[in-house]
């Protein structure tokens, strides 16, 4: 299921933001690589809520949760399953 989410998400990002750039890796930072900006993040949120049928809470809208495909899929899984995803720890404490 996780792989299906990743594939679907990558297709959306490639179509919307990559403009023919090379394929995206799961851990690549979408913001550091200038693939997505804050406006793009809103488009991504709207897509996730609509196509993955999840409802994000205000506290989910954190740039850390959307930085990589892995983190986004973990968030989607968390929302769908009502549990924390398998990715990196959310909101790590320093």
């Amino acid at each position: 299921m996780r792989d299906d989410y990743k594939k679907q998400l990558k297709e959306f990002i490639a179509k919307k933001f990559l403009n023919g750039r090379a394929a995206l890796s799961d851990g690549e930072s979408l913001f550091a690589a200038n693939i997505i900006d804050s406006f793009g993040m809103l488009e991504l949120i709207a897509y996730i809520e609509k196509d993955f049928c999840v409802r994000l809470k205000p506290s989910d809208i954190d740039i850390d949760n959307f930085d990589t495909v892995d983190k986004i899929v973990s968030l989607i899984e968390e929302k769908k399953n009502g549990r924390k995803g398998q990715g990196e720890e959310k909101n790590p404490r320093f």
Partner: protein
Amino acid sequence: MVLLEALIALIVSVIVYWSLRTTRARLALILACSLIFIFFFGSLYAFYALLNTLAVYWAGKIIARRPSSKKLALQMAVIWLLGNLCFLKYSAALLKASSLIPVIPKVKELGLLLPIGFSYIIFRLVHYIAEVYKGKIVNTSFLDLSAYVLFFPTFLCGPIERFPVFYEQSRQPREIGAQIPHLNYSLFRIALGLVKKAFIADSIARVVMPVLISAQAHSRIAVILSVYGLMLRVYMDFSGYTDMALGVAGLFGYRIVENFNKPFLQKNIAMFWRSWHISLYTWIRDYFFLPIFGYAASPGKIYIGILASMLVFHLWHGLSLNFLGAAIYNSAGIFLWMAFRFAKKKVPALNRMQGNAFSGVLALLATFSFVSLGSVFLMFDMGGCLAVFARIFTWRA
């Protein structure tokens, strides 16, 4: 004389700082230096800054200890902070505006002046309390928070450093010997900032300001070149201050976030704003744009969010028509760029064009020209802006 005294005070505090062994002692020294620095602007300001820091620290404790009250504590703290900022920043302008309306009774001016650098304190405190609420900041002391919030090198004009970065750096074991390369680099940044501010920015100002102040009396080409010069002046002035702030912070071993990333080499307006005053851009993104417009996002919200963010970015400077004009002008620029980005997807020829060197140079020039024209809003009142625009865009020999 004041500059010499400040320089001596800085040298003494750097020497004392590196002779101290514990984190606590070093933070206490930084806090003492910061309070003395603010004290020179008025003793009440130092007290006021500490009071706000204490209020937010207390709200943070409530958030950490009482989960049932955490949302209320966050809301109260943010309302308190932003209420303070708006009251001090805008009360004079609002009173002045109300005096123009005959039916509103005249109110004597309150004589309040926003303590210089105070808005940066508010930005740091909002960041702190929001991250405490998210659970990303835990177990901090009042000394940590107050040293971070009032950190004197970045007190006057930023950058807005993030608390976890400051905290981590204050905990790193630091020996003066290992810091020599960084101290040398910090001295270089201070010198670079001084050159940018005192020589380049001020020299450009002496040339371009007289032309722009009496734009109608000068040729169109002189006014256009002065507009480009004005943007360079704004950059040299602000980035010069930032260089000095980073340099002084570096003398105490802190590596503060960069505020500019080659803004004049960006090929569109959105990328320009991501590389200009970066710490304020990311603050607005993380604590205004995303929390308010990110939730239940829709394409329409993006446009409203851009305009609202630009209003915050510019009206933070002051409540006046020229800053309102700057916000609308720059929002319009981003909307145009987004429309172009959309058109590129529909018209493959546009996409192909973008790949060649000529279009790259053109994009760079277009972006620089657009933001240069926008810089007029930052330096002149609305009447002055209109006079400059009229000289450039209306035909006259």
